[in-house]
């Protein structure tokens, strides 16, 4: 199948990251959060990647440096880095939730030789002061990266990287935009979104052209239409498990999907870094730790417009931003007639028996 390439990458993103670094002869620039601007790492000559949660029974090395009440995504990140089995040249962190914010300090203590840079983005997003501060924060990050790598930011490469990464995000959004018409299974779209995080942008776009031809015949999926909201998906298999139960995702609000891919870099500002910084604080769908009034109602409206009959909120255990958002999101969805349940995941990357029962009950309860 033409889609094999994206599916293979999505099923083994760590293998892809490793082979990409080897084939391109570049170290990986690993962004720890979904909104780290990988285009900056690309411009510094690194192979910019983000990684989904790692499929493993436990995180023994992370357990040695981090308490049990941190979410599995943070523990997975730490486990990956502590194992040292990826050719990581630089780690990029961002200010965000309390767990992510502590990661650079933990890494500095546990792996002093691993360089880590932090993008200290403002949390407030509705002021010129925040925009200015975001730009200064990105400049600081670039200076720090220059000092670590011993080479300057190549503005020509940055320009190309901004264009390429934007093209990737637009493509991912377009794919998710096709979910309501149900012409492609969501699992394939999520596979593409995961692959977009590790593949070289142009290679990803070419693979998408092959995998999702515009004139493809509709697949005619007839499952129960649902909204999926939450953090990074545990794996594409997790989505396939939902589909096998008769759920058809028609609307996405996840960090794997549209939350990050919805970011747009303006073309007009003379300062490219300023444009990137502003894109980070003006993302149309923000991570929940940010102050965005009306977000639950916005998500509910999108779900309704997409024809969702139910909603699944994918939350990692110990993820504070999700846990704070859940009640208001459930309430906003209920107000538009969409019942929702929270699926709390920890280390598992496939749908657990308990969650299957919850999903089944939700689907069966729908009129």
């Amino acid at each position, binding site marked *: 199948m033409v889609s094999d390439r994206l599916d293979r990458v999505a099923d083994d993103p760590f293998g892809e990251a490793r082979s990409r670094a080897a084939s391109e002869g570049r170290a990986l620039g690993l962004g720890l959060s979904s909104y780290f601007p990988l285009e900056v790492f690309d411009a510094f000559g690194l192979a910019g990647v983000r990684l989904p949660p790692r499929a493993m029974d436990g995180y023994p090395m992370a357990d*040695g*440096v*981090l*308490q049990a*009440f*941190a979410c599995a995504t943070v523990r997975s990140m730490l486990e990956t880095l502590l194992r040292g089995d990826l050719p990581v040249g630089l780690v990029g962190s961002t*200010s*965000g*939730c*309390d*767990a992510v*914010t*502590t990661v*650079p*300090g*933990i890494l*500095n*203590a*546990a792996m002093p030789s691993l360089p880590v840079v*932090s993008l*200290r983005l*403002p*949390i*407030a997003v509705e*002021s010129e*002061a*925040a925009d*200015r*501060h975001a730009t*200064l*924060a990105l400049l*600081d990050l670039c200076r720090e990266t220059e000092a670590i790598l011993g080479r300057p930011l190549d503005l020509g490469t940055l320009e190309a990287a901004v264009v390429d990464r934007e093209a990737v995000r637009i493509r991912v959004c377009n794919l998710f935009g096709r979910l309501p018409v149900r012409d492609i299974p969501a699992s394939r779209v999520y596979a593409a979104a995961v692959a977009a995080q590790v593949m070289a942008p142009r290679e990803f776009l070419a693979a998408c052209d092959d995998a999702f031809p515009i004139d493809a015949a509709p697949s005619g999926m007839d499952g129960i239409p649902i909204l999926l909201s939450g953090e990074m998906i545990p794996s594409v298999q997790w989505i396939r498990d939902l589909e096998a139960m008769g759920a058809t995702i028609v609307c996405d609000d996840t960090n794997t999907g549209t939350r990050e891919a919805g970011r747009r870099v303006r073309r007009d500002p003379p300062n490219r870094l300023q444009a990137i910084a502003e894109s980070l604080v003006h993302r149309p769908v923000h991570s929940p*730790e940010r*102050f965005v009034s009306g977000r639950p109602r916005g998500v509910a409206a999108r779900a309704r417009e997409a024809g969702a009959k139910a909603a699944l909120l994918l939350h990692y*255990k*110990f993820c*504070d*931003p999700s*846990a*704070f*958002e*859940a*009640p*208001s999101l*459930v309430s906003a969805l209920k107000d538009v007639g969409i019942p929702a349940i929270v699926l*709390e995941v920890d280390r598992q990357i496939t749908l657990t028996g308990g969650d299957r029962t919850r999903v089944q009950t939700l689907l069966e309860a729908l009129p």
Partner: protein
Amino acid sequence: MIKLRANKRLQSTIRNQVLWTRFGARIGRPIAWVTSGSPVEIVLAAGFIPFYPENHAAICAARGMSQDLAEQTEAEGYSRDLCSYFRVDVGSQISGRTPLGHLVPPDVILVSNNICGTVQNWFRVTAERFNVPLLFLDTPFNDAAPTESDVAYVREQLVHIAAEVTRLGGRRVTEDRLGKVVLRSRDALELWAEVLAMAAERPAPFTSFDAFVHMAPIVSMRGTRRCISYYRKLRDEVRERAKAGISSVPDERARVVWDNIAIWPVHKQLKKLFEQYHVSLVSDTYTSAWTVEHLEPEDPFTSLAKVYTDIILNHGAEHRVKVISSMVRKFDAAGFVLHSNRSCKRYSLGQFGVKTAVSTATGATGVVIEADMADPRSVSFEHLEQRLVPFFETLGATG
């Protein structure tokens, strides 16, 4: 053991503060609910009466009400994994139950993320519940000292907040008026720092167990004359104790430093355990967070921007290592206790590395204990005892 006379005064001070809040509301003074790390000086200068939900949650926990209140919040769909102060405080809002009689609702809410990311969500939930404006001070997290651009960014927000509280019914916040409040804050902070520093005496006349309760006025009344008066008396009393050689624990045999918030559900039991093993808890990172320097009444906005960005929880693990190591040396402690607080990720995550680094830097012995600041369901005194007793014994302190 001779108890602090200030203990009784603390009760009456808190009671009077609660009564003042109610009276103030009755005569039309606006009420601001604020986080413990908020620049309260601005709301005071605007004539608002501040109220501290974090303090309130701690009082609820110390009075044994926290589980019931937390369950009220959990019933609304909030996870039990969220901060217990949040769950307790919001549970009180839902149920109307509080050891303070009743809560005076806010006219405005001021939150700063310099202590954690949780408060911005907690206070957003609260603002929505009371349908009042939410003012947010974003203080960039730092590994080291705040940069000039950080300070400029925070200062700009402070000026905006000052204008907003005036617009929302307060007096105009002039630099002169704000400077006077800042001066009062500075006086109180200096007195509190003097009190805490006296625990360096041998035997320690005042411990962190005392500090955990006597910190209430510095958190909730700084910027007022009553706060200065309270700490002047406390400072004088602790000074007397130091001169007289009065120890807070009988026959002091070991001295340790504490990291993180107190464990309110077993606070008294823990205090007794330390006393039983003759161990003085001589310093801690929590109560000393209110001993900041460099508050300058002459340039209040810039000074507040620097101070409120440069507090311990707004820094990374490396800074914490420096702070704890410095405390170990200054207070001549042989060990340190890191409370891995399930409710506070910002304060707790990374403590394993901190433990190793502090031990390497100072030679002191460290122990990590797992508990929660307010939720008794996540606290086992027996477990704490099993961790602490062998730790005390390694320090040469036996019961």
